[in-house]
């Protein structure tokens, strides 16, 4: 049975699944990379993704348009992180506690609204989710075509966002200012540039990306919304940001690594290798701890990560 895993079709399907599964965590982790570069640690990603997934589902259900659903997901993510930003940047509430509060809010609101929105129906309704959008010509390339170019639109967007976020952070003036805020906010403040404003922008962008990540889970790949369907992906995105040392390229590598584990686990279950499936399901979380333990490189974190900026100090 193990040799089954090395057949070409299976290898291709595992790798294609890796790319697909990477989509939500990659989107979320890229957004969080920007937020953390500005010095804000948003631990509310799990709840933000969940609300994004829910809004995308409801948006698609109400309008019948998948595009509107995706926008609703991103907007909801932005809204959630605006609440977060107000609490931690303006009111300077502890970032960890606020993040947890946001997670609870996301879980509570999405479950409650799901129950009340469809109280009359006995089964939760479904939506038509986005299918694959093969790219002409490229999809015909052997191996690469089926792996990379027969994915959904949100997947292309996620992978396109990697160089875009890199370019923004490392090649634009605003990106430089943002990274500066994460290391030495006073320098920017003395130039008369707004630290708080830029942090707001970074956090809200991060929230919108997490909302998109959530939208992929419903409109992007599944017909229904299930309570707590993010199942730890928001937390994995945080791990990926740390493992990816706050650089988009490495974040991509880490996201692919974790989604490869997940894809492999699905395949192993599929061909019936006799291993308790719970071990496979727990694998990403075990590997997350191990990889952080082996890396020990918190020194590369932005110096001001988690610290509110107070002008007089």
């Amino acid at each position, binding site marked *: 049975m193990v040799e089954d895993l090395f057949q070409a079709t299976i290898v291709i399907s595992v790798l294609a699944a890796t790319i697909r599964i990477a989509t939500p965590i990659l989107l979320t982790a890229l957004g969080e990379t920007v937020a953390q570069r500005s010095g804000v640690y948003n631990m509310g990603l799990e709840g933000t993704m969940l609300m994004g997934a829910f809004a995308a589902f409801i948006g698609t259900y109400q309008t019948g348009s998948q595009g509107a659903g995706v926008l609703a997901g991103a907007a909801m993510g932005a809204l959630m992180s605006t609440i977060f930003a107000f609490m931690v940047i303006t*009111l300077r509430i502890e970032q960890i506690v606020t993040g947890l509060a946001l997670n609870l*809010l996301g879980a509570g609101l999405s479950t409650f609204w799901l129950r009340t929105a469809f109280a009359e129906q006995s089964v939760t309704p479904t939506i038509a989710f986005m299918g694959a959008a093969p790219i002409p010509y490229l999809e015909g390339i052997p191996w690469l075509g089926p792996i990379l170019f027969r994915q959904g639109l949100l997947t292309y967007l996620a992978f396109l966002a990697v160089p875009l976020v890199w370019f923004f952070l490392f090649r634009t003036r605003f990106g430089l200012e943002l990274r500066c805020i994460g290391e030495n906010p006073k320098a920017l403040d003395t130039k008369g540039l707004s630290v708080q404003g830029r942090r707001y922008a970074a956090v809200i962008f991060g929230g919108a990306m997490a909302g998109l990540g959530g939208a992929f889970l419903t409109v992007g790949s599944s017909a229904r919304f299930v309570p707590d369907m993010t199942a*730890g992906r928001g937390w994995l995105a945080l791990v990926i940001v740390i493992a990816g040392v706050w650089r988009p390229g490495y974040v991509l590598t880490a996201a692919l690594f974790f989604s490869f584990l997940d894809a492999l686990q699905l395949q192993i279950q599929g061909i019936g290798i006799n291993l308790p499936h719970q071990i496979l399901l727990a694998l990403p979380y075990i590997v997350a*701890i191990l990889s952080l333990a082996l890396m020990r490189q918190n020194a590369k974190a932005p110096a001001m990560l988690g610290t509110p900026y107070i002008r007089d100090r």
Partner: protein
Amino acid sequence: MTPDVMSAAALVDRRRGWRIERRADPSAVGWLVALLLAALGAFILSGLLLATAGASPLDAFSNLAKGGFGSGRALANTAVKATPLIFTGLATALAFRARLWNIGAEGQVFAGAIAAYACTHALDAAPALLQMPLILVAAMIGGALFGGLAGVLKTHFKVDEVISTVMLNYIIAFGLSMLLLKGPWSEAGGFFEQTAKVAVNAELPILIDKTRLHLGFVIALVTAGLMQVVLAHTPFGYEVRAAGSNLRALAFQGTNTTRLVLLVMATSGALAALAGVSEVYGVHHRLHAAAIVGYGYTGIVIAILGRLQPLGVVAAAILFGGLVNGSTLMQIKTGVPSTLIYAIQAIILICYLVAWAAASFRIRRPGRTTPSGEIGRAGHG
């Protein structure tokens, strides 16, 4: 900074006039006002939430209150619901006091329940006097080891405890599922992911007839009292509080901070584990995930609302226990799904955090002299 620059900066400040600044901690009056504002805000927001569901807020709230606190029996059952929350609230409060962000009470509850069941499920007929202590000790050891694991990951491998405890929460939930779903502990002939019923001698005794109030509630109150004493009057309590304000200063003073981190994480885990005991042996009388899930995360809210004080934790846990208990009556009478309370809990927490932060701001009028703290800092600078 040279003195000239300092005074120039002060001048600029004075010209700007009114200023808002934040104190380290709100005053006692500020805290009370914050609590009231938070309650009001949570009330209004939850009411709006109910309105989005097309329900009458007043109807829902009155049933919620009646179901939670309306009769002696309701109170007893509220105490039952509050019991695990007291344990997880205390566990979280202890860790947070030392500024260790243990989000792992959830997993530590699982660890405690698993350890207790592992050690005692073979002791069917053994007398209760033997089983009871064994269950408590086994659970606490299980929780301590699981909490300690996150501690070791922090002290020896530099893994942030927030991330590691969350990951461990997921891992142990899968671990329990492995033991229960066609696993060694599955109920013989059962379809569900659960164990058989525990022996009658292993059940925590019921305290008041015709209610579900069990011994666990008393253990929870005693634990809270003990923790109050330990925090206020022992060297360990002093170190926990000192670690919360400045871990490095504590290290310079000669305290072994690695040992302290491990001790706090292990103790926190042991406290959380007792919630597993109260639910498995006091309420459900069998081990399954539904019996123990969620208390860890709610415990975080409880700890924060209780200002990380043991007695505050008890008060907050009873309030939330009442919400959980009352939500059943609310669902029956008004049709509002009982899941509402999870949203309400989050809303209460957010309102509290915002009100608390707002209460710690103060407005300084222009032209006043600088407060002494700033003069001190300027002198040193």
